[in-house]
């Protein structure tokens, strides 16, 4: 068991080294990024504690991935496996629980700890062999895969929009729109196998253009109901709704550039921090989007002619 956690620690160190960072510095940066993001989130919206819990549960859900857990089950005896998974999930949720306690959200922190514990003991394996239909099947893969992976999470922004109308809270509606963009952006950062870029018979410029076209079009389809409902009920603030839609779109574009700017590797920590900084000060996107675009073109030239 101890060896397992030492191995996890060593793997994290290697990932940081691969990202070009000394592990100690990497951990400091991650901690600083986490604290910065947390304070930013809680400063920006009164519903931050809900988003915060969702983010934490999103991270712990990643640890419940079926193949990973099947492998762990094959390696450890049942009791040890359960203990290991509970430890992992609680460790992942710990910083979030701690901050919720600090903010005196005692009930939320208890719920978060409990859900993390339940998630550790829950298997999502299903014997039902159904492919979820998606409106995005014509242009696989990001939206097709993302839509299926986040089907339930995708309902949250729409529910929040309805709540925002019923309680007449404009800010909640804007939060719902931004949350939807956050979910959509989550479809993108992980790089695909290089084969799926190599397969394209187009120039890097056209490849990126096609990616953006699909991303913006499909993101607009998902945002459309929120924008229309919000626009109808808060017509006087329609310009603000469009502004946030625009910012979300520019951020989506920047993430795609950043992804291919690091391709075939994942977005490294310093660039990840740049993106986080852009969230807190969106005008920076106008500087960094062209920077990531230039990098993406250079990286893609290796795979595309």
């Amino acid at each position, binding site marked *: 068991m101890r060896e397992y956690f030492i191995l996890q620690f060593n793997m994290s160190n290697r990932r940081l080294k691969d990202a070009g960072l000394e592990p100690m510095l990497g951990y400091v940066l991650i901690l600083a990024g986490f604290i910065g993001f947390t304070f930013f989130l809680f400063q920006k919206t009164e519903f931050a504690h809900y988003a915060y819990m969702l983010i934490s549960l999103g991270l712990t859900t990643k640890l419940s991935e079926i193949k990973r857990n099947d492998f762990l089950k094959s390696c450890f005896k049942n009791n040890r496996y359960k203990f290991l998974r509970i430890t992992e999930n609680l460790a992942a949720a710990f910083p979030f629980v701690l901050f919720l306690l600090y903010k005196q959200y005692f009930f939320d922190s208890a719920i978060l700890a409990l859900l993390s514990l339940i998630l550790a003991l829950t298997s999502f394996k299903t014997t039902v*062999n159904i*492919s*979820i239909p998606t409106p995005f*099947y*014509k*242009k*696989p*893969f990001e939206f*097709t*895969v993302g839509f*299926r*992976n986040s089907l339930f999470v995708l309902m949250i922004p729409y529910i929040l929009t309805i709540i925002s109308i019923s309680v007449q809270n404009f800010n909640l509606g804007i939060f719902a729109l931004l949350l939807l963009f956050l979910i959509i952006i989550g479809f993108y950062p992980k790089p*695909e*196998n*290089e*084969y*799926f870029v*190599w*397969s*394209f*018979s*187009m120039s890097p410029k056209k490849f990126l253009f096609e990616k953006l076209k699909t991303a913006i079009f499909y993101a607009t389809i998902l945002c459309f109901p929120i924008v229309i409902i919000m626009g109808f009920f808060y017509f006087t603030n329609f310009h603000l709704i469009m502004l946030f839609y625009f910012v979300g779109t520019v951020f989506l574009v920047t993430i795609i550039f950043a992804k291919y700017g690091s391709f075939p590797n994942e977005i490294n920590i310093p660039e990840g921090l740049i993106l986080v900084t852009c969230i807190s000060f969106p005008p920076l996107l106008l500087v960094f989007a062209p920077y990531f675009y230039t990098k993406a073109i250079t990286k893609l030239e290796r*795979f595309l*002619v």
Partner: protein
Amino acid sequence: MIKISALSKNYGSKQVLKNINLNFSEGNVYGIVGENGAGKTTLFRCIAGLEDYQGDITSTEKPLKNHLGLLLTDPFIFSKITGKEYIQLLCNAREVKIDDVESRNIFDLPLNQYASTYSTGMKKKLAITAILSQHNKYYILDEPFNGVDIQSNIIITEIIHKLKQIGKIVIISSHIFSTLDATCDEIHLLQHGEFIKSVKKDEFHILENEMKEIVIGNKLNNFEIQ
């Protein structure tokens, strides 16, 4: 035609391909054989442009990669994508319009099911269907017969014959000599990154015997099989 001249490839200080010179011409099927680690997959990745290398690789259709159907030994499949969408993705990549995916389902695959739930052989068959749907000029098939059932082996063999008939270039690697014997016009033996022998169809049996000699030698004399 695909022409490879003075191709070499190093991984750090290790030289994996040494001064490879080969010509592949239209309407022919070429077999590349060699033990594990001989450099077959690296050679294919170089031809596909997925690796940097020293030397030259030129082709009649330019750029080569845009006319190449590449079947990887272990095709990568996304987790929540159906077989149909996988084919659609690879056709979109080559800007090939595909209206009726079902009609291309030569292996009777469950195309509406998530491809990640397919067996190894089914994934390979899906990848073959996808690259055939791209209408490529050149094909590299890295171990197309591995993990595939006998019925599909027969279909793949027929597909290769058909590709040859319509003037495509097909390059195959396989560890099963009979499949190469049934499909190839020429076989090249790769050992430690170098081609040590090339034979035409009428000499395949000689190559097979020589390979047995090289591979087995007297190893089994000391191993008492009971």
